[in-house]
């Protein structure tokens, strides 16, 4: 049963990611990215990381993507039609080639190396309390640095916007 859900979510995530790049409508593209995030959230939940799963939905799918859609709608981006230049074709080919090499490397590594044994997770694994405790003890420095980074971003945004108002 778990395996079925895993494959279902995984395949849907791959499909959504591929379709997101391929569709032409920016809005559809954004929606497919949301679908992809949904599947990832489901995979997190299956791993027992409930908090991460919910935050994935809340922050990425729920807030950031609303902002992305908002911008697309404000700028009224529509489907772009035009002739594909040779430059673009070359870039795309290069991109596919790099991706192919990357996948080949991963496949080769998986084939030869041994994966670490999966550990049984404890009952408190992934709960809000457990994640919070680790975040505020072992990882307090990265956590605070990240918050300063975000504060700097907010201040920067305010300064950029202020000059136009």
């Amino acid at each position: 049963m778990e395996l079925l859900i895993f494959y279902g979510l995984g395949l849907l995530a791959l499909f959504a990611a591929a379709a997101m790049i391929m569709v032409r409508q920016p809005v559809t593209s954004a929606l497919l990215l949301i679908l992809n995030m949904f599947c990832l959230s489901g995979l997190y939940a299956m791993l027992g990381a409930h908090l991460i799963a919910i935050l994935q939905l809340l922050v990425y799918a729920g807030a950031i993507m609303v902002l992305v859609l908002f911008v697309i709608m404000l700028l009224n981006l529509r489907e772009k039609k035009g002739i594909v230049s040779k430059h673009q074709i070359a870039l795309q080919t290069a991109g596919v080639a790099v991706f192919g090499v990357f996948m080949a490397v991963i496949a080769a590594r998986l084939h030869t190396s041994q994966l670490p044994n999966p550990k049984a997770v404890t009952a408190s694994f992934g709960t809000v309390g457990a994640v919070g405790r680790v975040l505020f003890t072992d990882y307090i420095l990265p956590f605070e640095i990240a918050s300063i980074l975000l504060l700097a971003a907010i201040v920067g945004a305010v300064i950029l916007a202020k000059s136009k108002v």
Partner: protein
Amino acid sequence: MGNVIMADLARIPELLPSIIEMVAKVVFIFTMNMGVFAPLLGWVERKQSALMQDRIGANRADILGITAFGLLHTLTDAIKLLTKEDFIPRGADKPLHYLAPFIAVVPALIAFAVIPFGGQYVLWGHKTNLVIADLDVGILFVFAVASISTYGSVIAGWASNNNWSLLGGIRVGAQMLSYEVAMGLTLVGVFMVYGSLRMTDIGVAQENFFHWGIFLQPLGFILFITCALAENKRTPFDIPEAEAELVAGYFTEYSGLKFAMFWMAEFLEMVTISGVLVALFFGGWQIPFVTHEGLVKFFGFLGSNFAQVAVMVVHVTVFWVKVLGWIFLLMLIRWTLPRFRYDQVMELGWKIILPLALVNIFITGAVMLMVM
């Protein structure tokens, strides 16, 4: 893989009580939402607004002269909406236009999954927990699901190929985003006081009347209900569908059942908001000054199993009565206050509620440090 499924199937007999419990809870909540609240709230709203505006309200629909206080209008509404032409405007994005009402209504339905509508009872040796999903992340699930429902309105506005709709959709996006941030912060105080995000923990902690959220978090409560009203997109926060400026906003181009789905989503969101308010601030299923133990003792003459059943029925009834009271109050607010202007809504969210929520967190923390 076949073996895995067979192994799962073999465990069904031992899991049977849990499966029955699960199905019963889901069916109960689904019927309450779709069967009771979604159709009846329309009638309640009509009659209440009529009462407040000194009118009679809906009273014409009748079967053989029986009008049943206008209740039959619910039926005629359903027939009208079902038989209406399903109109899609020219130039609209058809798949998205079709999808939008579903995205709006489904989150409104599933958000109720984490709200406990009763306590924990031992029925014939089987421990029953009256909440569909007792998640550790609890209330965050409601937020996540509510943020998904935003897409329903935003996409509806985009896909309709109509400028009014688009403006409505953009306003929904901005309003939801602003108030989600504030709403999350207003509840941090509640989490701090109860030390848990799990809604059943918060419910159990409110057994003592003076530990209800409204007493421990008065400021948080006022801020939360304001944010919740804004998330619900009803007057005074209905700028996304302001009929004086935007025809009907994001659902201008919807008719028939798809329009009904937006309408239903709004009512179901109201039920969910009332459920959250009751669960977090008004003691959930608890009765003031009556403990769980005391109630079990009171029904002791029924024998241990039926006493538990009786307590369960009382608790569930108390919960729904509280929810109904809140729905009534939310509707009162709708018919009392005029609509805010767009800039006023934004200012209220960012310049008043957000700083006050931060102050609330600070005060809660300071008081907790002093008390402990």
